[in-house]
């Protein structure tokens, strides 16, 4: 492998990681933008999403990596699995908001944030105690297609992940920018009081933010499984922490910022592993975060959060 091949290969690795982190970062950012709440339950909604995807794929008779699908059956299975997983995690997100966080909305202090940490641990332990602690072999029906670019290898799996992540992010951008509910979300994010006075149903907007964020976490759980061919009850913390860091790096509350932050963290992880050593990946990632925040406290693209007067 030449240095260029190596650069290319690590860029491919980094972009795939980045796509996953970006989808996770969006969930943090959507909720923070409206409620100024860091939703730690998001970590494990992602993890639960990967298990829902695992069970859905098993309903199609897919176990391990032995059954390969192509063409329409593959598209059909993926479409159904993405839909089921995203709906299910979306509903979990809405449930968390409606029953556990709404009663605390007007409580000052960290009660809501602590609740989200509690919910995170509850989800974590439910999965641990019901499915067990060992790593699960994640079904993967994708054909093992790949093309060589010099010495680097680009697999179908990576291309698919980039396409799906890009489509989901475009859809979200369209929703936030162009639809009525999206406009209501932006208005609430700017000034909830004024938005309410103008007739925006703030409760509905908040539920939408939780639904969308959690659905994206579900999608990213499924992508995680397809990418690594495994899942376990443990995956939430590491990926979630990086997703959260990506959101802060890009500017929390800022949707394009979350995407940018995700990509940067993914690339830093890949190139840091190459140049310095994988053991140092976390040190590098968080050192960059600290440095960026020292010079740009609002993150790269600026923080967007409600104006409280």
């Amino acid at each position: 492998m030449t240095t260029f091949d190596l650069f290319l290969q690590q860029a491919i690795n980094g972009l795939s990681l980045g796509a996953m982190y970006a989808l996770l970062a969006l969930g943090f950012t959507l909720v923070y933008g409206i409620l100024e709440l860091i939703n730690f339950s998001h970590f494990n909604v992602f993890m639960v999403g990967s298990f829902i995807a695992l069970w859905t794929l098993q309903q199609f008779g897919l176990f391990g990596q032995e059954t390969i699908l192509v063409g329409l059956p593959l598209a059909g299975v993926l479409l159904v699995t993405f839909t089921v997983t995203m709906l299910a995690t979306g509903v979990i997100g809405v449930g968390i908001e409606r029953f556990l966080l709404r009663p605390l909305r007007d409580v000052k202090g960290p009660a809501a944030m602590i609740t989200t940490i509690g919910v995170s641990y509850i989800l974590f332990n439910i999965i641990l105690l019901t499915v067990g602690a060992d790593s699960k072999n994640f079904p993967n029906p994708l054909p093992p297609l790949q093309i060589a670019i010099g010495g680097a290898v680009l697999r179908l799996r990576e291309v698919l992940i980039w396409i799906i992540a890009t489509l989901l992010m475009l859809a979200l951008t369209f929703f936030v920018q162009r639809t009525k509910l999206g406009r209501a979300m932006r208005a609430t994010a700017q000034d909830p009081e004024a938005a309410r006075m103008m007739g925006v149903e703030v409760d509905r907007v908040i539920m939408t933010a939780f639904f969308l964020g959690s659905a994206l976490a579900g999608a990213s759980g499924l992508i995680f499984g397809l990418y690594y061919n495994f899942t376990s009850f443990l995956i939430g913390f590491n990926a979630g922490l990086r997703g959260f860091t990506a959101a802060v790096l890009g500017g929390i509350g800022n949707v394009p910022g979350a995407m940018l932050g995700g990509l940067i963290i993914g690339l830093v992880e890949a190139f840091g592993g190459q140049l310095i050593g994988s053991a140092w990946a976390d040190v590098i990632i968080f050192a960059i975060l600290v440095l960026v925040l020292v010079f740009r406290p609002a993150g790269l693209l600026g923080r967007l959060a409600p104006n409280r007067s």
Partner: protein
Amino acid sequence: MLTRRSAFTAAAGLATAFAAGPALGADKVVKVGVDMSFTGADSTDAIRMANGGILAFEEANAAHEVPGIIFQVEKYDDGSATAGQYDPAQAATNARKMVSDRAILAALGPQMSGAGKAMSPILSAGNLATITPASTNPDITDPKFAAQYRPAGKAIYFRTVATDAYQGPNMANYLAQPLKVRSVYVLDDSGAYGVGLADAFQKQAEKIGLRVLGRDRLDPKAADYAAVLTKIKSLGPEALYYGGVSQAGVKLAKQSYEIIPNVIKAGGDGMQSTDLLVGAGFPAVEGWYATISAPHVTDDPKLAAFIRRYNDRFSVQPDDFAVTCQVGARVIIEAVKELVADKREVTRAAVRDAIQAVQMQDSLLGPIAFDENGDLRNKIISVFQIRKDESKPLDSPEQYRYVGVAPSA
């Protein structure tokens, strides 16, 4: 329907019930603490292993092998949910609990060296001997570290396996000859066992002229090893050696199969695990080498009777660690038997001394005797390779084919 198996289970259950009941109140109960990582990535192995010891105690009780003594197993779990595998803090807590329970006169375990390092100073202070059937980090029994791991002086950490001081180096020899590997990349999983094993391997590799192209550390909780594997691919070693257990091992097997499929891959007893077969599965695990620090005996016709009894009792196939654990339990039984025969009082100190002095000629592992540090006197490292056998269950330990003994360092 009363099958032979259910009849056996019923009989064993009855025997235990009677034994534990007040009807035989004259018998002295000797409690044995069994500490393994029952929660987390190594749980399947933990259960399989512990059952070897449990079976030995059940059979000794059923046969009234030691007159006036009933053995009672008390399980301790050093795995924790937050660690996802063994947790040294939990292991230390378990050691304290065992020491404070006066009825516990000996212990079996732990499974993991990281747990062993946390437990041994506490067990030493309580003068409670333990026999580990699996933990292989050499520091714990090394006299150089006696002040740290056995502050009270006497050896309390006995093993029915050899240590990584042999496991890593002997595997380096095996890679060089017969596998004729000339260059290698070394990884570990940041744990006490993994780092020690990889260090010992690397030292011997350098000594015998195997070129070590690099060394890196995996975070067992991270999901993505593509960056480090891509780096390894660019360096082009002929072999990869991994010191670590299955939590990182599962992901390493999966991702290395995709990124560096043609590199020879080897690990220690941490990769001798059905958790690996289940979590990573074929084809990713095909071709991996793994070692154990004990002679390979489950294919030995001498063991057929034990394997059948184990299978009848637990409905799974035992592996070599079920045997090392059975032998550990037998050592405790022999030690107590010796004390009773000599009409000496069965105390912790006496049991420790009796374990130290045990000379078994015909254990399932062959002759067993300990040196003054608690290590086995005869040390054998067996090498296995995973080769898919469609006729057996794909998650059975039988997928590991015995390929020989690794040359001594």
